[in-house]
């Protein structure tokens, strides 16, 4: 078999390649992978990391795909220039998936056949390096992954001091683990320096493109945004991939939300017995005047449907974060998708229709975290924030979170003194201002006229039970007008234009970076596309204007049926035939390679 060799080197590829690291989950590879991505980031090079992991705690294959891109493309790349094979079970596949000319690093104790001669091979004596550093027995497997960090540092020119600062961050300054991991990395680096004859065609070179930015994930951002949005109450039930959002709140709220005067908590968090109870508690809290929030994923969302419908009809503000994973059914719990657009938009029986905010970046997860609470209070209705596993759990380069630029909006709540001032008659569902949003009182109000009886059954303007046809229709129509009117105040779409575009592309959420990359790639092919990113449902008029302006619009999404495509087609039926659905779901984040190929295929016809 081909030995290590140096003949294949051509021109250096700098700061544009992907590394696929195959390990076994539960083996501590996460630390090694985060160290790599953070080191590269610290060198000022845009980088993203996607964890492709199993629904399992220990022992199954897991991959981490790092994309280095000085062009700033953070979406998934289908190409793999460097592979690290640490898992015997996936060795063959990892070898086969590597692009020609790529570097194949592998633990040399894996005795699997290598049947390719178009690669640069790099066996690593993982066991002997680890043995020499004499780790405590229980840490032996964990530090083994640091070997590829050291070897890659040598091959790609990753600065050792950035590795040190990455480890320092990861271990929160704890010198013991920092030093130990660092010693393995150093030993591996020196082994590579002294023994490897290969020269890597891929290289990182320091830039200043990450200056002022952070590496973070959307769920942490969403949790922090919720805290800064003044949430009072969170109830949740663990589910992948939503769990890390309430957990971020659990981590940060104690430090941020203690009243400095009394030292008491200005919020409460309950882990519920299931999603039925999580949404029930949140609805109860929202009714009682608390800014209440829960987070879930597809299966939990299904369970929340009945209370979501009640909250819509009884007009109770709540915020529900939906971190999408692959469905139907239990599906692929640890893989990403955009398949709950329809379910979220119309969650519940009857004519239920919700407001849905769709963040497309980590920074926007923070922003929508607080904005959702304001919108829910203002419109007295559930507000859903639709994110996904890719945005929620993976590491993204992001500008710093921006402090809310608007004061907290509690909407139309009447307390005792407000009721005294009201000259006209007050009724819970009486539209006093003509804007379809009535005034509400909340429990605890001691004014004798404040109380009302909330019910999911038919009711009149004064919340009395009613089965009268005209009252039912009047109430439901007003609620509909209220939701319709939100189009004007929800986050506007983000539109990117290029001169000479005759076609457009519409996308939403985590595919943003891949779609931007696609537009660049297609421009190189002579196809110019303007791009609109939907940020909320129901859509703003700008979305419809955009659709009207082009001969053809591609609607790109990570699901099978083109759910956003059908929503848009219903919004603007006279232009429906100009909307072309490009939808795809296989558990992986959409890549620019796939979108480009799909567009090119359509352009042929």
């Amino acid at each position, binding site marked *: 078999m081909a030995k290590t060799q140096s003949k294949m080197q051509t021109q250096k590829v700098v700061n544009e390649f992907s590394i696929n690291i195959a390990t076994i989950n539960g083996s501590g590879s996460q630390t090694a992978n985060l160290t790599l991505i953070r080191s590269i980031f610290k060198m000022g090079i845009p980088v993203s990391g996607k964890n492709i992991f199993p629904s399992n705690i220990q022992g199954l294959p897991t991959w981490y795909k790092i994309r280095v891109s000085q062009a700033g493309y953070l979406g998934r790349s289908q190409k793999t220039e460097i592979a690290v094979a640490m898992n015997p079970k996936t060795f063959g596949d990892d070898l086969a998936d590597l692009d020609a000319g790529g570097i194949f690093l592998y633990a040399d104790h894996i005795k699997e056949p290598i049947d390719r001669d178009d690669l640069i091979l790099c066996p690593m004596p993982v066991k002997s390096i680890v043995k020499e550093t004499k780790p405590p027995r229980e840490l032996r497997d964990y530090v083994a992954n640091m070997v590829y960090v050291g070897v890659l540092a040598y091959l790609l020119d990753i600065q050792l001091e950035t590795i040190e600062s990455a480890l320092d961050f990861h271990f929160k300054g704890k010198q013991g683990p920092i030093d130990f991991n660092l010693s393995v990395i150093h030993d591996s680096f020196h082994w590579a320096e002294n023994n490897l004859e290969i020269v890597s065609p891929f290289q990182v070179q320091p830039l200043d493109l990450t200056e002022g930015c952070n590496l973070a994930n959307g769920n942490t951002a969403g949790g922090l945004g919720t805290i800064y949005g003044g949430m009072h109450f969170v109830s949740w039930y663990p589910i992948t991939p939503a769990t890390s959002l309430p957990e971020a709140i659990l981590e940060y709220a104690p430090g941020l939300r203690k009243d400095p005067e009394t030292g008491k908590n200005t919020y409460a968090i309950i882990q519920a017995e299931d999603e039925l109870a999580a949404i029930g508690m949140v609805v109860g809290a929202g009714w009682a005047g608390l800014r209440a929030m829960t987070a879930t994923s597809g299966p939990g969302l299904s369970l929340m449907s009945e209370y979501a419908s009640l909250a819509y009809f009884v007009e109770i503000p709540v915020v529900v974060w939906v971190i999408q994973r692959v469905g139907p059914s239990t599906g692929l719990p640890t893989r990403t998708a955009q398949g709950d657009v329809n379910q979220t938009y119309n969650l519940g029986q009857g004519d239920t229709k919700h407001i849905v905010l769709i963040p497309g970046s980590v920074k926007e997860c923070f922003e929508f975290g607080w904005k959702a609470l304001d919108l829910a209070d203002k419109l007295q209705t559930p507000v859903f924030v639709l994110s996904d596993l890719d945005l929620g759990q993976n590491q993204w380069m992001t500008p710093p979170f921006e402090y809310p630029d608007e004061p*907290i909006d509690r909407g139309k709540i009447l307390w005792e003194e407000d009721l005294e001032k009201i000259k006209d008659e007050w009724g819970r569902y009486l539209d006093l201002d003509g804007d379809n949003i009535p005034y509400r009182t909340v429990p*605890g109000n001691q004014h004798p006229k404040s109380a009302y*009886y909330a019910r999911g059954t038919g009711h009149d303007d004064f919340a009395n039970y009613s089965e009268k046809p005209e009252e039912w229709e009047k109430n439901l129509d007003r609620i509909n007008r209220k939701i319709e009117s939100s189009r004007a105040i929800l986050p506007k779409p983000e539109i990117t234009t290029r001169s000479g575009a005759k076609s457009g592309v519409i996308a939403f959420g985590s595919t943003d970076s891949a779609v931007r990359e696609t537009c660049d790639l297609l421009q190189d092919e002579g196809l110019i596309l303007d791009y609109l990113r939907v940020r909320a449902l129901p859509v703003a008029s700008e979305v419809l204007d955009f659709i009207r302006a082009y001969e053809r619009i591609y609607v790109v999404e990570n699901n099978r049926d083109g759910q956003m495509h059908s929503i848009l087609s219903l919004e603007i039926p006279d232009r429906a035939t100009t909307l072309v659905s490009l939808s795809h779901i296989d558990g992986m984040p959409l890549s620019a390679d796939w979108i480009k190929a799909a567009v090119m295929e359509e352009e042929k016809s």
Partner: protein
Amino acid sequence: MAEKTSKLNEIGLSKEDYKGKQTTLCLGCGHNAIVGQIISACYELNIPPERVIKVSGIGCSSKAPTYFMDRAFGFNGLHGRMPSLATGALFGDTSLIGIGVSGDGDTASIGMGQFKHVTRRNLPLLYIVANNGVYGLTKGQFSATAEQGLALKKQGQNRYVPVDIVWEAIAGRASFVARTFSGDPQQLKALIIAGLHHRGIAVIDVISPCVTFNNQDDSFHSYAWGKSHEVALHELSFVPPVRAIKVQYEKGESLEVPLYDGTHIILKKLAHDYEPTDRAKALQMLEDANDRNELITGLIYINPKQKSLFDLYDLPDTPLNRLPNEKLRPDPKSLEEINNLMF
């Protein structure tokens, strides 16, 4: 008569001030008796209606909150999911008094999970189950508390053994569990009063006959059976702190249970020599009564020292829903620090 109804309590309210809408339940429905005793208890305890939150699920029982205290906030939520609704709502202002009315379908079938979890969390809530062994609103199907062998018109015979709500509540570590009978208004009211003074979940299983679908004389949930099989454990009195000295009981015949707010429940022993502070003995007593075919009523279990849900949260004295906005949003400097601490 007119004079009597307009009599005012210590906060200047008449019984009229505690009333709700005209009942739409069937004439003679046991649930109406429950409504009547809730009104009497709150009136006698001088509770401002505005300080009460009344919550319910779905079913005949869950309509009940409509018929008392119009001046209290109320929420008729979803079938079996009143406990979660009440939990969230009471966090809004933990000083409010929660009264939940549920049924046997609502609690022992669809809502069993939420029922067990609200008992284990010890949410301060008076949780009344109007238990008639039958689904009334859907016109006469067996509920999970219907006894085995019960015959209903359309359903034939009930195949399954019943769920005992009191047993489930005790096993679920509720801190106050009682059973009574809607045909025994005095005991019902005494238990409601005691439950309203308990800081924690107070489950009262009220056997409340359905006169329309399940009132055959031999049925566990009928008036006739209840009247002839009821065995009260004790005579209950509730003693507000100021009056405690005025009540004299002979030693050995009564048991005083002090509650968190300085009040006492006094249990005057009747048929059984029973102390309701031992969970295992309470369960044994239920088994024995079942073997004897008795409807045991009274305060079956109480632990006034168990921490309530709100004792576990370090909340401010100001209700969360009245906190000013500036207490809710951390300052810009803190966000700057977070941004700086990120990688």
